[in-house]
C-alpha cells in the first residue's frame, strides 16, 4: 500500500490488523486498569474489606492455604470432578454428535429431545441427582456431564453437518465405501471443529464447577468459596474464583496447542 495509514486509522478500520506490540500493550493496559481500580478501591479505603478484599489480602490467603496444604487438595478435588465429567461427556458426545449431523434418522430421533434438555437449568437437577446418586463425587461429576453433554452434542452435530457434501462425493467416486467415507473423510474433516467445540465446552464445564460443589461437597474450589461465604472470608472467595479462572485459561491454552499440533493443516 502506497498510502500511509495512521495508527489511529488502523485501530478504527473494521477488521484491520494492528501491530503486535500495540496488541500486547492494550491487553496489558486492561489488566493494569482492573487491578488498579481494585487497588484504589481497597487500599484507598473506599470499600470495606469484608466486601472487597485488597490484592494483598488475596495473595495472603493464597499463601496461607498453600502452606497448610489445603489449597492443593481442593484444587485436585475440583480438577478431578471437571476432567472426569468432561471426558465422560466428550467420549459419548463426539461420536454421537457426528452421527447426529451425518444421518438424518439419528438427527430426527435425537434433536428434538436434545434441544429440549439443553435449555433446562442445570441447577434445578441438583436435588434430583442427589436423590438418585447420593452426595459422593459421582453427583458432582453428573452435574458437569449434564451441563456439557447436550451442548457438545448439538455443536458437534453442526460441525459434522458443515463438512462439504462434495468431499464425501469425491471419496465415493474414488471407490470409498460408506464406512470409508465416515472414517476417512467425515471424521478427519470434522476434527478441527471437534477440537474447537471441546475447547469451548471445557470452559463451560469449569463454570458448572461451583454448581456441582454447591451442595454436599466436602472439598473443592467451589466448596471452599461456599464455606468462606459463611465465614465472611471474602479473600478466600476471591482466591477460589481466581484459581478457577486460571485453571480455565490453562486448559484453554492446552487445547489451543493441541489444535495447532494435531490439525496444523487447518490453520
Amino acid at each position, binding site marked *: 500500500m502506497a498510502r500511509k495509514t495512521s495508527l489511529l486509522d488502523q485501530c478504527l478500520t473494521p477488521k484491520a490488523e494492528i501491530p503486535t506490540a500495540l496488541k500486547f500493550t492494550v491487553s496489558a493496559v486492561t489488566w493494569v486498569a482492573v487491578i488498579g481500580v481494585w487497588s484504589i478501591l481497597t487500599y484507598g479505603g473506599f470499600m470495606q474489606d469484608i466486601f472487597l478484599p485488597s490484592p494483598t489480602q488475596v495473595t495472603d490467603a493464597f499463601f496461607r492455604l498453600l502452606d497448610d496444604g489445603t489449597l492443593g487438595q481442593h484444587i485436585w478435588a475440583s480438577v478431578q470432578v471437571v476432567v472426569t465429567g468432561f471426558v465422560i461427556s466428550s467420549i459419548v458426545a463426539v461420536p454421537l454428535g457426528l452421527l447426529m449431523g451425518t444421518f438424518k434418522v439419528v438427527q430426527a430421533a435425537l434433536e428434538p429431545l436434545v434441544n429440549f434438555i439443553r435449555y433446562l437449568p442445570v441447577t434445578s437437577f441438583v436435588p434430583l441427582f442427589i436423590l438418585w446418586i447420593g452426595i459422593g463425587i459421582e453427583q458432582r461429576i453428573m452435574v458437569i456431564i449434564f451441563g456439557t453433554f447436550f451442548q457438545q452434542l448439538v455443536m458437534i452435530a453442526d460441525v459434522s453437518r458443515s463438512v462439504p457434501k*462434495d468431499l464425501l*462425493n469425491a*471419496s465415493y467416486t474414488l471407490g*470409498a465405501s460408506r464406512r470409508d467415507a465416515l472414517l476417512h473423510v467425515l471424521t478427519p474433516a470434522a476434527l478441527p471443529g471437534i477440537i474447537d467445540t471441546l475447547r469451548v465446552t471445557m470452559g463451560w464445564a469449569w463454570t458448572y464447577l461451583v454448581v456441582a460443589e454447591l451442595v454436599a461437597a466436602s472439598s473443592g474450589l467451589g466448596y471452599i468459596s461456599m464455606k468462606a461465604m459463611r465465614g465472611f472470608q471474602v479473600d478466600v472467595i476471591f482466591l477460589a474464583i481466581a484459581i478457577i479462572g486460571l485453571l480455565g485459561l490453562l486448559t484453554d491454552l492446552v487445547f489451543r496447542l493441541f489444535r495447532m499440533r494435531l490439525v496444523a493443516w487447518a490453520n
Partner: protein
Amino acid sequence: MSVAVAPKTGPYPAQPEPAGPHLSIKDVRLEYKARTGKSVLAIDRISIEVPDNEFAVIVGPSGCGKSSLLYLVAGLAEPTEGHILLDGTEVNGPGADRGMVFQSYTLFPWLTVRENVEFGLKRRKVPAEERERIVSQYLNDTGLAAFHDAYPKQLSGGMMQRVAIARALANDPRILLMDEPFGALDSQTRTSMQKLLLKVWEQHQKTVLFVTHDIDEAILLGDRIYVMTARPGRLKEEIVVPIPRPRSLDMVMEPEFIAVKRRILELLKNEIKDDEH
C-alpha cells in the same frame, strides 16, 4: 441435484448388451422437488453413447442440467426415468470405475498432495510399492512432483485442480467425469490447465465426459460435443470435432475451429434467455 445416493451393492437388472465397451445414457429424465414444493424437470429424455477412449464434451447454458447429468453418471444421484449403463451394466450408486473431478475444490485438506492422489488406491487396497509407483507417475505427469508434501491450503486453485485430476486418474477409472473443473480459475490458469489436460489425455486416452459452458474449451478438448438446451435440458445436437490431434491452443484461430464455434453459438443463441447475459 436430487437425492444423493451412497454406494450400494446388489444384483444388477439384466440389460441388453450393447456392442463394445462404452458408456450409454438412455432416455434419462431427472425431475426433482424444488424447495417451493413444485417439481422441476431438469433433464428431459437425454440419450448419449460415449465410445471408448473418446473425449466427449457436454456444453450448454447455465442451469441446463449438464452437471446433474454428470452426477447421474457418477451414481451420486438417481435418474427419475431411464438408464445409465457402463459396459452394459446398469450404474447403481457411485464407484471407482467412474472417477470425477468436481467444480468445487474437493481435495482432502488433512492429506498432503501425495496422500490425496493415493486416497483411491488405498481404498482399493493396492499394495504399497505399487501405490508409490503409480502416485509418483501421476504427480510427474501433472507437474506436481515438487509439491508432493504440500497441503491443499498451500496451493492455488489451479494447483488444487491439478491434484484433483491426478487423484482421479491415478485410480485408473473406466471413465473420467469432469464437471466444469476449470470454471473457477482465472483465464490464464485456465489456459494452462487446458494445455495440461490435452497433454495428459493424449498420453492416457482415457474415456472422458467433460461438462463446460465455455465453447472454446469444448472444441479444444473434445472429440465430440453434445449441445444441450436450456432447462429442461434436452440434447440439441451432436457435433463431431474435425480437428486432428495432437491439438494445441493455437488451433482456436483455424477455420475448422471457427466453423464449429459458429455452429455452437448459433445453436445456443436461442437458448440464452434475457435474464442471462
